[in-house]
């Protein structure tokens, strides 16, 4: 069965600062299964980028291999994309980021791509603080190869075919925190209201931003004994810190009483506004975040929302002391030392 995506849209659709509608940020028609969480992630991304008024061509989207990694085709059609090899998106994103520091980079990966074959690359891209938004659409299962368990599936749960998951799972948000990510969040593809501000904040954050999004697989991991099904996740989600995203230079009209909100100011001037919730942990304190994640895990809950943010850290380019001009735009004059210098070098070898 094939579908054509309608080009028709309402003439009075809302427009952003660039005069674009959210339809200008859409992608090709998805070929993922109907109801796939990944499409909801894509839709949230479309909304986030639309609302941030970022020109789509100033974004590059990168992915590995798997259902999640196919997803970039289905959002931001006006962005260059690179569907690389399995588990290796982080290195390609690193090279891309090194080449041109003026673009925004969105990496889209899955649990197999990041927690298994690409775990090494994931760890190192976190370490090197690449300025990018790294999304894992996490469904605990291998979709494209039809239902094998992933490394993020919880021990004791069973696959659709009835096989028990024998090994403990890897929690990527905890890993990212341990390895020095400067922005860590977790969300649920069924909660767009939570996803959109988190994605906006992640994109505006200068440094490595990681979002683990529980994104159920309707075909292979939505059964009763799964712990990554829509029903199970809905029942076990605990929203921790509720975050609003306040863009740069916007008029702040809402007034909060003392103790009701808590701001984290990002590099570009935008603000993450945290509502004081009942899950009192400090999102600026790595240890506090780790503690909260562990505590909820022990209670059988999935802690979502902003987990950690520190906008004061330096990113990869600051550490490397790279020039502000994107390296890909330097020319011979800046790059080639010339014949005269070479003659001097020759003399050093005589």
């Amino acid at each position, binding site marked *: 069965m094939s579908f054509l995506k309608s080009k028709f849209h309402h003439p009075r659709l809302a427009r952003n600062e660039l005069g674009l509608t959210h339809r200008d940020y859409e992608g090709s028609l998805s070929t993922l299964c109907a109801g796939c969480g990944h499409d909801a992630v894509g839709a949230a991304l479309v909304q986030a980028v639309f609302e941030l008024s970022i*020109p*789509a*061509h*100033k974004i*590059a989207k*990168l992915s590995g291999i798997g259902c999640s990694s196919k997803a*970039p*085709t289905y959002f931001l*059609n*006006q*962005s*260059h*994309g*690179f*569907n*690389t*090899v399995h588990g*290796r998106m*982080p*290195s*390609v*994103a*690193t*090279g*891309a*980021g*090194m*080449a*041109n520091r003026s*673009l925004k980079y969105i990496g889209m990966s899955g649990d197999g791509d990041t927690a298994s074959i690409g775990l*090494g*690359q994931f*760890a*190192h891209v976190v370490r*090197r603080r690449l300025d990018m938004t790294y999304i894992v659409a996490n469904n605990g299962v291998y979709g494209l190869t039809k239902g094998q368990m992933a490394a993020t599936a919880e021990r004791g749960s069973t696959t659709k075919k009835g096989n028990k998951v024998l090994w403990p799972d890897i929690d990527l948000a905890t890993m990212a925190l341990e390895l020095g990510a400067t922005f860590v969040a977790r969300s649920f593809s069924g909660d767009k209201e939570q996803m959109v501000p988190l994605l906006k904040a992640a994109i505006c954050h200068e440094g490595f931003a990681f979002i683990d999004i529980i994104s159920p697989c309707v075909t292979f991991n939505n059964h009763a004994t799964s712990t990554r099904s829509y029903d199970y996740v809905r029942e076990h989600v605990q929203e921790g810190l509720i975050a609003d995203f306040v863009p740069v230079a916007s008029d702040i009209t809402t007034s909060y009483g003392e103790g009701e909100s808590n701001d984290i100011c990002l590099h570009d001037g935008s603000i993450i506004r945290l509502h004081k919730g009942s899950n009192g942990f400090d999102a600026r304190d790595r240890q506090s975040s780790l503690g909260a994640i562990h505590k909820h895990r022990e209670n059988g809950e999935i802690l979502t929302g902003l987990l950690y943010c520190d906008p004061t850290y330096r990113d990869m*380019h600051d550490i*490397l*002391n*790279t*020039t*502000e001009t994107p*390296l*890909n*735009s*330097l*020319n*011979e004059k*800046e*790059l*080639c*030392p*010339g*014949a005269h*210098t*070479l*003659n001097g*070098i*020759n003399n050093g*070898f*005589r």
Partner: protein
Amino acid sequence: MASIKSVNECVIRFANTNGTGSASANSMFAKAIFRMGIPVSPANIFPSNIQGMSTWYDVRVSAKDYMARREGSPDIVVAMNAQSMADDVRNVRPGGFLFYDSSRQIDPALMRQDITFLGMPISEICLREYQAPNLRQLFKNVIYVGALAALLDIDFSVLKGLVADQFKGKEKLVAPNVHALELGYQYATTHFSCPLSIRLEATDKVGSRILIDGNTATGLGAVYGGATVVGWYPITPSTSVVENFEKYCKRLRIDPASGKNNFAIMQAEDELSAIGIAIGAGWNGARSFTATSGPGISLMSEFLGLAYFAEVPMVLVNVQRAGPSTGMPTRTQQSDVMTCAYASHGDTKQVLLFPSSPAECFNMSAQAFDLAEQLQTPIILMSDLDLGMNDQLSDALTWDDKQSYDRGKVLNEQQLDEVEQFGRYLDVDGDGICYRTYPGTHPDKGIFFTRGTSRDEFAIYTEKGDEYVKNMQRLERKFETAVNYLPQPILHPANSGSRTGVIYYGMSDVAITETFDLLAEQGHYIDGMCIKSFPFGQPVQDFIDAHDQVFVIDQNREGQMRKLLIMELEQNPAKLVKVTHYDGMPITATFISQFILQNIIATPVKRNTKRTGS
């Protein structure tokens, strides 16, 4: 037995323990000969180890400019390693000399009548002269260089000049080093009859050439070629390519106004990531490279397939070493030819360049960045350990300031405005090379999705067989076009209408003049061709066609270049004779010429022809 008599033709071997600081003293010795205007070729034979194992440094001196390894025993051995002493004594050529530290008595069983023993109590002298144990060890090396200067008649002022150069900025160290040289020099002149029958004489055979290793030249080539992004992972013998790139970038590529770097280097977690970084940067419009050796090539294969199929420019420097697996990591070979030519699964092909000297490392390294962007595919520079890590007597490096980088078919914003229809894989010019755009160029034109899956001319995913075939055929066409851009083989005709040819590449080239001379002595004048790139062009086909018998020299077991020629040019295997050398040491002219003499069909002639190069 009479001692060997020679002037400016000899091999001197230094036997040391690694980690004792002998390397800088030994290279000072080689450099002194170079500065006397005598062609010299040093080679480090070292273990995969940091301290305590045997290491040798062979220096071939040849006024005839024979710069390959010489077959057989060295004329002089400087035996400073008790561990390898027995072998070192045994290895001296009859009529030669053994210079050793006589502080410890030599095992009488090792004594030979056919060589001259030159004992000098170096350790005792050091014990007397120096207090600190590390200095006692360090200056041993300098002392024997001083002694050799007397024994071989090396101009002492040249050595003093070298010390001054070496310690520029640390002048305090000049006097003690010169003093150590003098200690050795004086001991030798008072205790031995100097110079020996093997000696050196200043001449003018070096000309404007330089003494440089290939990896330094390759790293410099990348600086000149405009590389800005590097991903790498340390591995012998390629490590110094990136180290040198970084060294020269820090000197030449820091923006004077801002103090910021016009380059970015990332030491990655492994070779997979290293090449991923290069590919990401190439895709994003920066000139990028990575450098590796054997095992790294295996790991990079998957990514090489992606870059081939998705058509992403990047440069890969492969400094080959002896395989398979970990093999002999500190020995040389040319054994990655086949694996690189077809790196990755599926129908893949890669562009290879084969340098034979540091000057070519420099030129090809710089040119590789143009080629990668012109052809939109990885370019693999096939160096090797011998070329990369040993100093070679090389033509000086040259650069033409009038040349500019060729960034290939890339559309900018204005050009995209003028283009009616953009298709990333649309073969507009019919040469198989399509137009690409960098991310971020234009708000709504020229945007595409890069992938390793099959796609149509507009970069849209497809599994349609005919679209797939069309794309694969275009890629084939692109590689036919590629041949026109690549450096062509260098011919060395014997000018004798010879029916015998010899094909070689890389470091085998260094042995070829000597080989031709040895063959000429036996009445054989054969044509030579040094291959510089893959895929092969018409000149390679023509050369094979023009001869009845063609020897193909490979420094690997399989005769990989020969197999590649047979397959790619559909040659009769019987016509191409395999000459293989793969014990990890560089090939010698004696080895090649003996093999050819035993297998050549043509009958020798008595004639004197003058060989030309082209």
